[in-house]
């Protein structure tokens, strides 16, 4: 192992420990690492942006008369096309001089407007049209015998059977108070709900197996409509819209829970990576 590798890795280890010291409380070691990364990041991206954008698009064409590996003429069209963004970029710094700060709005106008216009079509395509197209999958499966089109049919049907059971139990116990007549009545209500829920599961499974209907597709459409209904504030959430919005909340909560779980696991994965890094560093001394 090279000595320089050991030195660089040790620097990484020290900085990692500095950041972890924050778990105890805010302290100078953490602040040291924090300020160092702010400066290093700014410097790093400045270098990258300079060599990727400013140097090839402005500096080389304007001062070295070279663009994309080809020579260009001083005062020619390409030279001006390189000079203008450079001048516009410099105008951004007018904000440091209060009397002419308004000049900085010119490049900002081009920048903000340009990227706003650039985004409209891709956003419409990727976030709206493609999502609606994906949601428009057939509700009934049209396939040959033996083909599986709904890989989630079993779980979906189980979940729907459980939902039927839970809704019926809640309705009979909380709304109709049928369980208040004694323990036997309560057990009867739960048993009846379980039978109906299981019956629903059996029927849905039979329908899925016969490719009559794709319960997962239906669930996706209902979830999408419910979510959209929840975020539709132009009408009061009563009646059908209120019911759909209520279903939407259920889907949103499951979605937020899933996102939360996913995020936690990704952070844990990073944590494992950092601990592995520290263990590897200790291993460097034994090898």
């Amino acid at each position, binding site marked *: 192992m090279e000595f320089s590798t050991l030195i660089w890795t040790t620097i990484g280890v020290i900085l990692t420990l500095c950041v972890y010291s924050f778990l105890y409380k805010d302290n100078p070691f953490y602040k040291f690492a924090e300020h160092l990364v702010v400066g290093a*990041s700014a410097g790093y991206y400045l270098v990258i942006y300079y060599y990727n954008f400013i140097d090839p698009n402005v500096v080389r064409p304007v001062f070295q008369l070279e663009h994309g590996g080809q020579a260009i003429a001083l005062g020619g069209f390409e030279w001006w096309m390189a000079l203008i963004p450079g001048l516009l970029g410099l105008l951004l710094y007018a904000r440091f001089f209060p009397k002419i700060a308004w000049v900085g709005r010119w490049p900002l106008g081009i920048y903000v407007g340009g990227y706003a216009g650039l985004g409209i079509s891709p956003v419409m395509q990727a976030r709206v049209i493609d999502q609606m197209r994906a949601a428009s999958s057939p509700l009934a499966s049209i396939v040959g015998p033996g083909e599986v089109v709904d890989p989630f049919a079993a779980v979906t049907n189980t979940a729907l059977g459980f939902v039927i059971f839970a809704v019926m139990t809640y309705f009979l116990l909380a709304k109709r108070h049928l369980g208040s007549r004694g323990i036997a009545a309560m057990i009867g209500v739960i048993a009846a709900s379980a039978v109906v829920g299981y019956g629903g599961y059996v029927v849905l499974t039979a329908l899925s197996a016969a490719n009559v209907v794709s319960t997962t597709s239906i669930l996706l459409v209902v979830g999408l409509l419910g979510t959209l209904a929840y975020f539709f504030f132009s009408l009061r959430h009563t009646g059908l819209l209120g019911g759909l919005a209520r279903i939407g909340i259920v889907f949103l909560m499951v979605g937020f829970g899933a996102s939360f779980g996913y995020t936690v696991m990704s952070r844990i994965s990073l944590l494992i990576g950092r601990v592995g890094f520290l263990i590897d560093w200790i291993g460097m001394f034994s090898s």
Partner: protein
Amino acid sequence: MLRRRLPLLLCFIAGLFMAVQYYVPHHSVQSAYETLLLWLQTLLAFAFLLGTVSLIRVHYHKIRNKAADRGFSLVMFAGLFAMLGLGFFHPSHHAPGSPFNLMFLNVQVPIEATMFSLLAFYVASAAFRAFRARTLEATLLLVAAAIVMLGRVPIGEMISSTIPEATRWILEVPNLAAKRGIMIGVGLGMMATSLKIILGIERAWMGGGD
């Protein structure tokens, strides 16, 4: 005119051109699009430099005013100028194994990765305090999070093979439906905001003053 109307006009022209060029496949329009895109990228780089200048000003004033934590401002300057020096004055700054690259890999990457991994502790702690199955919605959130967390580690599979399957189902059915709805809403919102900016209805980017 020059102070308020010209920036709005430039915003309108640039926005309209960038929005329309997708539908005009003529080579002259595409050439103009490529030029304008290079301008925008160049402006982005200049804007980033502007941010760095602001950062330098803030920390310079801290040192000049002898603020209590001015020592850390010096650390910031050390990181910044070390990176800039290695990037601009080292002949092979972009080569793998160059000091510029090594500083990125051994200073910036470990600190950023560790900071993100710190969130594991804080998210877990916040969840422990905030997660209570008081309502149906809270219970759903709690159960979905627990299943997804269990389903993504080997212990979930060891407890029951149903857990990874349920995780996949949660992620690809109810989660997908909710995310799709949010995505459509966000997409429509982004388009509306973009149109408001191009048409000059949204002017917050111009700041205050004349």
